[in-house]
């Protein structure tokens, strides 16, 4: 028997495979497709203090080996999520739940995280700092170490649950930002969010997305994500959730070897609703082939001689 379990900020996951935020709704919508209890954890759709419709459509564009989305944080607001969505998920799922929190000011992040922190159905908080700071000229909080530190410090004061900070890859030095988050009290780092991208319709001579730009995800970004996980693993001493193009058990193992303790699966699950299950089922035979009995032994194992 192989051991797939991992630990994230003191929370045990039976396996390291998690549907990524924004690609799995609030989980319960998919309970009729398969038993959600087979997942390592469930990461909820990005939630903000107030309800949001999101961007206009088209919100989706195709890319070589991937996709671009500009959904714009559509969600019913934190109160509705905690009162309706989390209880609905808890009726069909007993494992760890990760709330993904977005915001447009430090105060908004803190208020939203405080609410999520008090909800017994939530185990881990993942802070999405890729949102634009409306008081900072619209620049993403995750674009500078100083802004990241400010928001993480404020949220840390407002929440006691394990706090992971989800980093934007659209930065010059991801390691510096990860270190700032660790110094501000984060319990872990999630990366990467999507890469800023766009497409143009050559017949209409117009951007495909109504929002003009969006975030690239899918196999196209996997090597970039892997490199950033590698760099952040070297920079911090807190656990990492690795994401960005993970599509099969081999990709998951590669992410672990780079330093991730768990993986989130996003775009692959939009193409194949059973992708997470197939990755989980693919891990034991792959571990056997690799001569691994305890999956967590692989975390960061590729760093040994570097």
């Amino acid at each position, binding site marked *: 028997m192989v051991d797939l379990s991992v630990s994230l900020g003191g929370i045990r996951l039976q396996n390291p495979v998690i549907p990524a935020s924004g690609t799995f709704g609030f989980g319960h919508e998919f309970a009729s497709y398969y038993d959600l209890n087979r997942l390592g954890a469930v990461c909820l759709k990005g939630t903000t203090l107030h309800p949001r419709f999101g961007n206009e*459509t088209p*919100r989706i564009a195709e890319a070589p080996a991937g*996709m671009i989305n500009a959904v714009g944080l559509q969600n019913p607001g934190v109160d509705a999520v905690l009162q309706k969505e989390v209880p609905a998920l808890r009726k069909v799922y007993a494992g760890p739940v990760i709330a993904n929190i977005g915001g447009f000011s430090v105060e908004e992040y803190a208020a939203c995280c405080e609410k999520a922190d008090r909800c017994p159905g939530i185990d881990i908080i993942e802070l999405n700092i890729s949102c634009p700071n409306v008081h900072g000229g619209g620049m993403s909080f995750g674009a500078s170490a100083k802004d990241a530190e400010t928001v993480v410090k404020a949220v840390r004061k407002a929440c006691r649950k394990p706090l992971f900070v989800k980093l934007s890859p659209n930065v010059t030095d991801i390691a510096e930002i990860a270190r700032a988050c660790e110094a501000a009290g984060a319990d872990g780092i999630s990366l990467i969010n999507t890469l800023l991208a766009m497409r143009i319709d050559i017949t209409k001579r117009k951007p495909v997305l109504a929002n003009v730009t969006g975030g690239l995800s899918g196999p196209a970004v996997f090597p970039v994500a892997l490199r950033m996980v590698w760099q952040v693993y070297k920079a911090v001493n807190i656990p990492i959730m690795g994401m960005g193009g993970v599509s099969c058990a081999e990709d998951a193992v590669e992410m672990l070897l780079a330093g991730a303790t768990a993986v989130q699966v996003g775009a692959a699950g939009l193409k194949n609703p059973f992708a997470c299950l197939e990755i989980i089922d693919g891990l034991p035979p792959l571990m056997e082939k690799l001569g691994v009995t305890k999956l967590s032994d692989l975390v960061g194992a590729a760093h040994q001689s570097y």
Partner: protein
Amino acid sequence: MNKGIYSIENTRQLAKNTFLTRLAGDTSAFCAPGQFINIALDGFFLRRPLSVCDWDGEGLTVIYKTVGKGTKALANLPAGTKLDVLTGLGNGFSVETSGLRPLLIGGGAGVPPLYGLAKRLIGKGARPVVILGFNTAEEVFFEKEFAALDCDVTVATVDGSYGKKGLVTDVLPQGTTYFYACGPEPMLKAVYDRADTSGQLSFERRMGCGFGACMGCTCRTKYGAKLICKDGPVLEKEAVVW
């Protein structure tokens, strides 16, 4: 929703840039006409959503316009090709409220799902009146197929090269009990504005997943934000916000 492997039985051209493909495989996930499938194609990350024209116990038929690289690739695949397909997606049309003389209005690539709908309306004793709109004669398809079901069929072309000249809204009949519409959004809006009965409209949006996970195809309705892929593609007239 089901995910399965489907085999291309045959593909034939119906009209200019318009193809019909019959896929063999499990159809147990379908519960209403107007539902759609989402096909994975080699070389493309996103699946291609296509409305289902009709289905039976052995397989299903899709009719599509080759508007982009994906649909062109699909039309060129040989018989016997195996495809990974999600089936039974979306809500589809409800036939419960149609009355005895429902009006079916299809525009271009919006025509196909009305065929499966017409069959099921006839099956419950209604006698559909069908209006098919196209740009020009060489794009016209399925007039005979609807007539063979014993529907009253009128074809309108924008340039007048076939059937009546004009838009579908120029040839609307009197005395119908309900309407079903599928086609380009300007056509849907025109039908909505002219309709004097209640009805249902099938919408199209660029989709990521097709099964309610990515929130890529959200639209505003009188009952809040809805997903075209999961809550739709069919919306009741009373819910539509333009």
